[in-house]
Structure formats: C-alpha cells, structure tokens
C-alpha cells in the first residue's frame, strides 16, 4: 500500500516535471495568443464563405485519394495473407513467428507520412508512392490482425469434422473459415477506413490525392478554397465512418 502511494506520488511529479520542462524550454508567449484574436478572426473570416468553384478539384482529388486507399489496401491484404500466416502462433514455430512479429512491429512504428516522403523520393511524385506507402504501412497492422484471427480459431469444431472423416480442404471451408471470415472482414474494413483517413493528407508531401489541394490553397492564401476542401474531407471521413458502422453491424 505504502509503495503504491509512493508510486502515485512519483508519477505525479514526473508528469508535472514534464509539463514544466515543456513550458520553460518552448517559446510560448501567452501575449501572442491574446493579441492573435483579431488575426484568427481575420483568418476565419477569409474562409467564409467557402469557395464552391473548386468542386472539380475536390472531386478529382477525392477520387484519387479513394483510388490510393483502395489499391493501397489491396496491396496490404496481398502482403498480409502470407505474413499473417507466418506471424501465427498456431501454424508456424516460434523461430518463425517471433522475427515476423518483430518485423511487423517495426513496420507499424514508421509513420505513414514518413514512408510516403521516402517513396516520393524513390519513385517520384503522384499517386504511386502513396499507394506503395499505404500498402507498406497498413501491412504492419493488418498482418498482425490476420495472425490473431488465425490464432483465435477454436480447435474443437475442426477435431469434430476430422473425426467425421472430413478432408483437410473441407475442414478449412466448414470449420476454420466460418470462424475466421467475420474477423478478417471486420479487420480489413477497419484498416481500409484508416487507410482512407490517413491518405487524405498524403498529397501534402506530393504522394497524390486531395491533400495536394489543401496544401496548394493554404500556401497561396486562398483560404475560401481551402475551406471547401476541408469541408469535403470532413464529409468523406463522416461518410466512411457511417458506412463502416453499417458494415460492422451486418457482419456481427
């Protein structure tokens, strides 16, 4: 009990210290925030009304972002099937799944935007580096999910079918796959939602999609156009989430 209290006290001091350190060493002038009032009002004022003439760019950019997310997700699924099997505790030995899981954790640790910047350097501007970056980045999570779907399959129904004389393919189809399919579908849709959200900003580093227009309009002070693009992004994210919720309910 006593050591627990001390642990709580130490944790509190650590957090307070970290906050203080950040304030002292960062050039935060509260006066700047106060005097920024009129500037923020001016900035927001220039965003309304949003400029509707950029509709064409929005549609073009959104379609490209959607294509990046779809093809990037497809790439991630193709990579995740073999890697998921190799990361499964129940199919392969420890000597295989340990290093594969470490590799996946390593992939997950690299932010998407960083991968995208590297890919732009490697293959040039446009949607291609975005697709490669999404496929690479998403595999770190999706392969782990697939491995967990495999490991979550209960053995008893498989043993029952084997006892009834069913062959390996029939066991896969009627005992293993029915248990895995909903998990795989749910995780794949979830990852697709993340891919779409994350690829909205890929254009900022030149890797294609609607992010390019946000970047362009903000840099050229066309805030009313940037506002339109921002509204379109918000609408897309809400739409994806709504679709995902409906799909997940149907799979359950």
């Amino acid at each position, binding site marked *: 009990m006593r050591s627990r209290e001390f642990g709580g006290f130490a944790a509190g001091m650590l957090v307070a210290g970290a906050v203080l350190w950040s304030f002292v060493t960062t050039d935060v002038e509260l006066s700047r925030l106060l005097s920024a009032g009129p500037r923020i009002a001016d900035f927001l004022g220039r965003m309304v009304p949003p400029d509707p003439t950029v509709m064409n760019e929005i549609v073009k950019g959104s379609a490209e972002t959607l294509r990046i997310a779809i093809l990037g997700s497809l790439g991630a699924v193709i990579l995740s099937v073999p890697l998921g099997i190799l990361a499964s505790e129940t199919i392969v030995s420890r000597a295989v799944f340990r290093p594969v899981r470490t590799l996946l954790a390593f992939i997950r640790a690299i932010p998407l935007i960083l991968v995208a910047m590297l890919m732009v350097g490697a293959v040039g501007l446009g949607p291609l580096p975005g697709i490669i970056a999404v496929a690479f980045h998403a595999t770190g999570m999706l392969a782990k999910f697939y491995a967990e779907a495999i490991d979550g399959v209960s053995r*008893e129904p498989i*043993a029952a079918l084997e*006892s*009834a004389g*069913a*062959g390996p393919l029939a066991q896969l*189809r*009627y005992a293993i796959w*029915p*248990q895995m399919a909903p998990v795989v579908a749910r995780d794949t849709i979830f990852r697709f939602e993340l891919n779409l959200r994350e690829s909205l900003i890929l254009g900022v580093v030149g890797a294609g999609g609607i992010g390019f227009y946000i970047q362009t309009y903000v840099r050229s002070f066309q805030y009313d156009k940037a506002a339109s693009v921002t509204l379109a992004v918000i609408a897309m994210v809400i739409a994806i989430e709504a679709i995902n919720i409906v799909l997940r309910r149907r799979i359950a």
Partner: protein
Amino acid sequence: MSAAAQIDDLSFVHPGAELPALDHVSLSVPAGESTALLGPSGAGKTTLLALLDGRLRGWRGRVSALGAPLDPDHPPPRASRPDVGFVFQEFALVERSSVLRNVLNGRLGRMSPLRAVLGSPSPRDQEVARAALADCGIADLAERRVDSLSGGQRQRVAIARCLAQEPHLILADEPVSNLDPARAAEILTLLTGAARARGATVLFSSHQPDLARRFADRIVGMRDGRIAFDVAVGDLSDVTTADLYRETVAHPGIGLRAVT
C-alpha cells in the same frame, strides 16, 4: 455376441503427465447395446472415448473398433472414420453456421471429396441430415445459427450431426452433464432410441449412476484409469445405484464384488 469395440491391456499416459490416464484396461463393448462408462471426473472416461475415436497417439495395448484394429502411431484411414461417431462434451459446433450446415458437416466424410469441398450435398445427404434433425426434434431450428441456441438445443444439434454421419458405433462424452435432470433424460432417450432404431452401438460416459442404470444395458465403472466393474444392468437388482456409485468412488473393486 460380437463386440463393437475390443480393448486388451490398454495403457496411455498423456504427454507431460506422470500418472497414466488409462492403466491396463481391458474391455469389450457388446454390439447393438448401450453401454455406460460410469465414474468420477478424471477416471479416464474421456480419454478412453477419444482413443476409440482414433484421436490419441502413443498408447500401448490392442484396440479395435468395429472389427478394425487401431494403430497407436497413425490416425485411422479417413474412409473408416464416419463409421465411428462422436458426441463431444462441449458440442464442438461451428457457432456462426446454421444448424443444418452443422448437421451436414457430419456428412462430409460420406460425400465424395469434390462434393464435400464444393458444398453440394447430394439429395441423399440432405435427406439423412433432415431425418437426423427430425429425430432430434429440431427440424424447426434448421436455419437458425448455432450461437443463438440454448445448451439443450446445442446438444441436440451435436447428436444430429453425429447421426447424420450414419455411424455404427456412437461414442458420447458426458452427453448430459450440462443439462438439468428432465432435459438429461430427454437427451439420453433420443440418443439411445435413435441408435437402437439404426442398429448402432452406443458407449456414453456419465457420472450419474441413475441415468446410467436407466439408459444403459451395461455399466462399466471406471476409477483412476482402471475398470472397477463391468456388469449388465439386469444383474443389478439387489444393489442400489447410489451404493454402486459410492463404492465406485471410494473403493474400486468392492462394487464389482457386491454385484457379482
């Protein structure tokens, strides 16, 4: 009478265990009858049933099921596996599949491999599955998903799947341990009745002597991996089943003396 299962000097130690789960067991299961394996938890009943189903490796002794000797090192040939049916204690159903699909799964070993993988049961497969559903009183549940069923309904599905594979020997591991007494009697009535109608032999395990006495033609008592007694129910008249059970638990061997 011929034997549906013949066991001679069978011993088995679970991997990693010190004490044997089965210790020099010899037993003959008469064909066409219902035999109960009676004994407390850990007596070796489940192990013996799984072994007869061909699922355990590394045992010693001689075992044959339906006249075919089992190999301690290899699973039985797939073609012969449908002949021995198994009703699992925890049902072992595919929860997200329909009742009918689960019962058709019992037919997979009787279908051609192509039919099994393509999922196109023949009219006869469907007929057998429907008859099994009807016999188990769950024809109206055919399209329901198993994860929406009660425990008693699941047990009926598990039995229907076993019947659908048209076994000659039915092994049932504690088929009623999860049910209340009224349900338990219903389930054992339908299991032994369906088996008798099909001319199949039943070997079921239980720790409830009254149910064993009521539904079996023969009771085999087990304790600590050994056969404690083996007696026809007709010879039990001067001993109450409660006494029998108590003696089985407390002093293996005395029960046997008391009834012979």
